[in-house]
């Protein structure tokens, strides 16, 4: 293993970890707010990626500009989805039933994408798709750096929103103890709706970041949901910083393990980490006390 290759893999791992963190942020939020296992999260990521591709194809503008439309659209869709569908599930069986419900939503999204855009693999052709610069002998691709920047920005914004605003306090109160939150006058239904919308808004950003540097097709979301679930379990369900740290660790680990092990075995790293977490520390390595109750 040569020095430059090791450094290059480290750089790639960090960039990949950032992307994982962004893609997983919404997932951990849904579970934190209302114990919903959102299988359709990755389908929404692919939907956002398709919208970015479609936007660029129709207008010729940069796909990042599609965020102006997709973020509010996804936030609204998230609120509606929580109020019209998720809130109708019985609280006693919510977690399990939400798997079925969101699974069906994922299928609907996949089918609609296939119907509208066919199964052809698509990729946004960017003038800067191969652009890169050197840093101590390692190449840093511009598109990956943009994805990393979007991840950093979104996660910091999400963290500040949760910690520093009244809405964030209400949301965390709803996460921690719904009944108590209602007693102090929080409209937990509305807060839960907004929380869900926030999760989907991160999917809009994540999907757009994904579309910059990958080839997309309707069934691609099945490849993503497994690793993303592993990220939020290792990170501690419900914890956004936990998910970010876990994503970084797993992204780096995967990237570095590929040097000695090859791609096939490096992919299993996520699942090894998942099993190890469930055996040794089921509440997750970095997360809060929250998950212990479930």
């Amino acid at each position: 293993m040569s020095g430059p290759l090791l450094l290059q893999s480290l750089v790639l791992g960090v960039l990949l970890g950032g992307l994982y963190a962004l893609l997983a942020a919404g997932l951990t939020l849904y579970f934190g707010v209302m114990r919903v296992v959102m299988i359709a999260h990755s389908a929404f990521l692919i939907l956002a990626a398709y919208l970015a591709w479609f936007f660029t194809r129709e207008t010729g503008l940069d796909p990042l500009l599609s965020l102006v439309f997709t973020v509010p659209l996804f936030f609204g869709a998230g609120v509606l989805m929580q109020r019209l569908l998720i809130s109708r599930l019985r609280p006693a069986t919510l977690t399990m039933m939400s798997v079925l419900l969101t699974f069906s939503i994922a299928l609907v999204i996949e089918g609609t994408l296939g119907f509208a855009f066919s199964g052809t693999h698509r990729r946004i052709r960017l003038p800067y798709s191969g652009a890169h610069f050197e840093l101590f002998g390692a190449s840093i691709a511009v598109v990956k750096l943009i994805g990393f920047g979007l991840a950093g920005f979104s996660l910091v914004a999400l963290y500040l929103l949760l910690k520093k605003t009244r809405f964030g306090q209400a949301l965390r109160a709803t996460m921690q103890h719904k009944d108590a939150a209602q007693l102090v006058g929080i409209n937990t239904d509305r807060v839960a709706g907004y929380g869900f919308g926030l999760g989907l808004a991160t999917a809009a950003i994540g999907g757009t970041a994904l579309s910059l540097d990958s080839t997309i097709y309707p069934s691609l979301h099945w490849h993503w949901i497994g690793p993303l679930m592993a990220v939020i379990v290792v990170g501690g369900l419900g914890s956004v910083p936990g998910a970010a740290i876990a994503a970084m660790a797993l992204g780096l680990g995967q990237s570095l393990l590929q040097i000695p092990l090859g791609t096939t075995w490096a992919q299993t790293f996520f699942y090894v980490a998942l099993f190890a977490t469930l055996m040794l520390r089921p509440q997750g390595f970095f997360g809060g006390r929250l998950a212990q109750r479930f």
Partner: protein
Amino acid sequence: MKLSNGLRLGALLSTAALVLTGCLSGNSGQGGGEGGEDPIRIGISLPLTGDFSEPGKGVRRGYEAWAGYVNANGGLLGRQVELTILDDQSNADRVAADYEKLINQDGVDLVFGPFSTRLVVPAAQVAEDYGFLFVEPAGAAEEVFTQGFDNLFYAAPAVANDHYNHLAEEILAMPAGERPETAAYAVMDDPFAQGTAYGLKEKLEAGGVRTVADEVYPPNTTDFGSIAAKIADSNADIMVGGTQYQDAVNLIVSLRQLGYQPDMAAFSTAPTNPEFPKAIGQQTEGIISPTGYTPEADYPSNKEFVDYYTEQNGAPPNEDEANAWTTGQVVAAAVEAAGCADPAPECQGKLIDWLHNNEVDTVVGPLSWDEAGRPQGAHLIQQYVDGEIKIVLPEDTKEADLIHPKPKW
């Protein structure tokens, strides 16, 4: 009691009627076959739904176009051809049952093969059991030819391992200064994709081109950053991808992001996809790909095929349609030569023997086979030249000169 007797009588009568009808239709069927006026019935099972439905439908379009063309031009042995196409749902159990039914119950005169290795093997087994000739349009992986079938013929120019033969010859014939010394391989874990890249690897290694990277990845891989990093680190002179579609596109972009510039880059399948230049843009220049078929190839029957097919379907044919048409041409050549098309073992035996000993001119070029049914050709080598994919090898069919070393991507 009376009613019951009536019923009994009715049942008896209808049974008798059924038996009689059966005899009559049996007679007429036989009489027609001997008279030579009945259509030649060809049985086919295709994956019209399920995993292989897209290529399966392509093969159906090719078969239907071939039948339409033959019938519009006087038929085969003066008889019209009639296709019976069943849907095997991409299921290997179904496909065997389908051919069993076509041969046994429907009494077809000939069979054509289904799509893909996984379905070709069980279907060929049924055809072998009944002594039927089995020409198939898809199923290039080595395992098709190692089952001991002597009735099977693959109607395409080359098996997967031979796709790059023309390129291998070209590379090994280069003068010492230009000739690449090292090669990197990135290959999907898939029998077809591996066959193409490792076929070239064997020949290059035997010719002294060193392998400096050899990465195998599972079909669901979407992130190619680390694979690209290893290849870039090896700094190989040439890069060979045993790829399908999205893997090639993602790998190429990842390699560009690392600033890796090989003298030659060859990928299977992906570059011939019309979506490829839309995804890669200007950077396709110089990328090489083997192909089994191109509408531009000037083989004698190809122009008729492209014109007829385009007129019927509104778009030129691609490889699936061409291989189906080729299957029709191969069987038709054997039928014309043997002068028979019926399920009797003598006739089928004659067809099989003829194909083992003769060459057939088709839309993908002249084809001949070894004992196991492997076609004896190689694929054309195409390269992006001035933004368009053109044939560059072999010399006698080329549309443009091979560019080497390739421009930067």
